[in-house]
């Protein structure tokens, strides 16, 4: 009991410290001072009266949402004496693997830079700045020569690194016993099994209504949909983050989704936020970064070729170019296993005073990165709001999909979860695919790394991301991947090569995610 209490005290202290530096604190202070003018505030009961005022005026709710937001992102309580690396990643071998992967990426970036004799960053001449400012809303019309640029890495390169991950403390003998894991991931992380997943995802069960299932044309809306929409409107009017997160587990109505996501992520477009975005835009205008070309290339290769996202090409540049320059993103490295790459001012290699993070936000984009932003363009049309939402989604979820860590939502755990689910509940299929040289993870990896963006139809993708937000976890990606395999199992059992297996799973655009998930979790005999 004592341990729990001190843990709690530690968490509270940390949150308070965090919030003290935030804009909300300043606003609360200001509100408190202003409230002294009010007749109901009396000197004798100052503290209680101000608290009451906050409750009535909705400020308490805002504070509640902020605390809830911190809790969602906050890592689990650790020992007060634990070094900061443990907050990032408790397992040494994972940290080491992430470190060496980062060095490889940086090396690749630096060598591209040297080969092409392009500086990592340069200031734009005034003429170029003016031109870019004029073209800001249609950067997609630019056709710079990107033929020499290659993406720094693609998901499949990353997969190879994960396959080679080994825990040096885990020895299971040289011989391949039945216990040896048959999949590609060979590290012993704890993942949930179906009974645990059933409990975790209880709101997706067969007895609860779901958007994505119970709003189909055959089901009369009085049974579920109408009531669900009504509750959604109520949640929004109450402006309660925690309630919204709970509500969205059953899916969000199309008309309410944009606001609900903003509420859950605790994003409200304050003038300061818009100013901040404009500041980032100015940074883009003034300086050109090498990563900009990588971003251009990625957008042209992926989103621009997608039937549904090509329309939003310009928004993608407006978001991603600003994102690269946003140093506030560096904050997430405190709880990510990754560390921002460091670069040195020319000629001052090794001197810490001349070290800068490159790119300024510490995130080097890879092939497919722009697909994290594309679906959001369906919901948000104002660039600064779109930007804020994306940034928050990145620092809460997406960063875990391309860094090596032991976190349950990290890509390593997701891969292991996927393989374990398949191996345990579809052993025949798993064995067959393995025999023909088509390890399932080789096919599903790219789906999970991109959180299925670009693979599912947009409305289905948004229903899936509703649940990511609702459960504050990416594990649903692994479950869906396994469910897709289960769904196409009959066809997969007939294939005899990796290429044929890829072909069976090439087109996911007709899939309905919620029924698939429900069948896999709740209706399959285990």
């Amino acid at each position: 009991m004592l341990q729990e209490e001190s843990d709690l005290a530690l968490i509270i202290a940390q949150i308070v410290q965090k919030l003290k530096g935030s804009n909300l604190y300043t606003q609360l202070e200001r509100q408190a001072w202003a409230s002294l003018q009010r007749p109901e505030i009396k000197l004798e009961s100052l503290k209680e009266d101000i608290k009451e005022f906050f409750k009535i005026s909705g400020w308490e709710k805002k504070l509640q949402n902020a605390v809830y937001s911190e809790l969602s992102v906050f890592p689990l309580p650790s020992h007060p004496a634990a070094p900061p690396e443990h907050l990032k990643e408790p397992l040494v071998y994972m940290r080491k693997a992430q470190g060496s992967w980062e060095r490889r990426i940086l090396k690749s970036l630096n060598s591209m830079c040297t080969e092409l004799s392009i500086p990592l960053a340069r200031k734009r001449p005034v003429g170029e700045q003016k031109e870019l400012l004029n073209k800001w809303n249609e950067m997609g019309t630019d056709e710079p020569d990107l033929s020499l640029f290659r993406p720094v890495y693609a998901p499949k390169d990353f997969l190879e690194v994960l396959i080679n991950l080994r825990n040096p403390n885990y020895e299971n003998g040289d011989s391949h016993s039945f216990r040896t894991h048959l999949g590609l991931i060979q590290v012993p992380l704890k993942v949930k099994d179906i009974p645990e997943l059933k409990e975790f995802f209880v709101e997706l069960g067969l007895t609860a209504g779901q958007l994505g299932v119970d709003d189909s044309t055959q089901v009369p809306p009085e049974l579920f949909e109408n009531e669900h929409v009504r509750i959604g409107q109520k949640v929004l009017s109450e402006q309660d983050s925690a309630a919204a997160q709970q509500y969205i587990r059953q899916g969000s109505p199309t008309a309410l989704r944009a606001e609900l996501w903003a509420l859950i992520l605790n994003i409200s477009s304050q003038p300061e936020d818009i100013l901040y975005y404009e500041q980032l835009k100015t940074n883009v205008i003034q300086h050109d970064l090498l990563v900009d070309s990588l971003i251009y290339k990625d957008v042209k290769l992926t989103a621009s070729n997608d039937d549904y996202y090509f329309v939003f090409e310009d928004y993608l540049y407006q978001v991603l170019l600003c994102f690269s320059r946003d140093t506030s993103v560096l904050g997430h490295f405190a709880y990510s296993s990754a560390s921002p790459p460091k670069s040195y001012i020319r000629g001052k290699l090794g001197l810490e005073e001349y070290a800068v993070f490159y790119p300024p936000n510490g995130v080097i984009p890879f092939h497919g990165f722009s697909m994290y932003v594309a679906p959001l363009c369906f919901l948000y049309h104002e660039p600064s709001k779109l930007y804020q939402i994306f940034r928050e989604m990145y620092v809460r979820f997406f960063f875990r999909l391309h860094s090596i860590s032991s976190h349950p939502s990290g890509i390593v755990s997701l891969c292991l979860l996927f393989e374990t689910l398949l191996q345990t509940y579809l052993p025949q299929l798993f064995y067959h695919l393995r025999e023909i040289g088509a390890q399932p993870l080789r096919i599903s990896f790219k789906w999970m790394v991109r959180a299925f963006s670009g693979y599912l139809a947009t409305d289905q993708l948004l229903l899936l991301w509703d649940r990511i937000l609702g459960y504050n976890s990416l594990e649903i990606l692994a479950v869906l991947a396994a469910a897709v395999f289960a769904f196409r199992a009959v066809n997969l059992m007939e294939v005899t090569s990796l290429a044929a297996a890829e072909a069976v799973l090439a087109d996911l655009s007709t899939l309905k995610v919620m029924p698939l998930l429900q069948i896999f979790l709740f209706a399959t005999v285990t």
Partner: protein
Amino acid sequence: MMSRQKNQNYKGHGLPKGKEREQRASIRFKTTLMNTLMDVLHHRPGWVEVKDEGEWDFYWCDVSWLRENFDHTYMDEHVRISHFRNHYELTRKNYMVKNLKRFRKQLEREAGKLEAAKCDFFPKTFEMPCEYHLFVEEFRKNPGITWIMKPVARSQGKGIFLFRRLKDIMDWKKDTRSSDDQKDDIPVESYVAQRYIENPYLIGGRKFDLRVYVLVMSYMPLRAWLYRDGFARFSNTRFTLNSIDDQYVHLTNVAVQKTSPDYHPKKGCKWMLQRFRQYLASKHGPEAVETLFSDMDNIFIRSLQSVQKVIISDKHCFELYGYDILIDQDLKPWLLEVNASPSLTASSQEDYELKTSLLEDTLHVVDMEARLTGREKRVGGFDLMWNDGPVSREDGAHDLSGMGNFVTNTHLGCVNDRKKQLRQLFRSLQGQKKTPN
């Protein structure tokens, strides 16, 4: 001629009852078009292609054949052909304008200004050169706006240009010249000058128009079906009024887009209507979307009503129209034009599926196989929109728009579970045949 149905309120949709329709052993079809239509016709069980001069039961013809041969071709009762003799009353821009104007006047006389205003979905249009002076009057009343010139009879975006100054259209000026000069005049091609919609609704900074399919089975009485699927065609470049010479910005016709330097064939520049409808719903809410789609229903019905008395309603004829609709920033839909021969070539896999489904369902409605009872309100992806009067939705959903528009049985941009519906439909028809009532 229809026998009395038990339910007096619901009229069948035009299939002859009373005498049993013949079940034919095989149906001989003819067509000059290739692509998707050929695939669909060949795959239809019991349908056989007839070449050259053989006798046919079904002809998907092109309009030029119709023009030359319709009047001296004898057709048996059961024979069907895919165009109405004088469809151009609806599909040629100058005739359509005339008919619509006349219909509007009639409505105003009969039902008042408010009702007539429902026909204001067509941007102000003038035929050139005969209405040149009327045009100039309107032009002077609205200085600085942009106008678009379209040839009356061409398609695929050919010959279209924008202008703001009268001198750009000097060729169409109707002069009073001396009779000596007139002999030497080279007749100028018929064009229409139309007010250009300067505030189109943009998505991602791009302009788009909607292609919607309407199947008309007869004009007297008017029976029309609306297909649930369709698509939004995007312009490849960002919309701006600065470059009115840039054809690629303003014309969203896929044929024109294909020649734009930006065009990448993989892109296709099209969104299915379902995606478009969802995008709008998440941005503007479901009520606004209902209103918009209800306004579009209004366009389809009124435009057909305006030519109802003019088009020769031959029972052998049916026609599948492609309507082009433009939405402006106030979410008001405008009719750009109606196509009698909408393109049936597929630009992508998704497009191929849409067009083959569209054609299959068209053939189901035409019903050469005499399977339907005539009381159906939905066949595959087609919903019966107008049957000599509005067709109500089965579930009696109330009119959300409250605009006094017809509450029609339409589901444009909604889920199209046509395969399932067709299975159920044909299964129940089989069942009915076995137990005659």
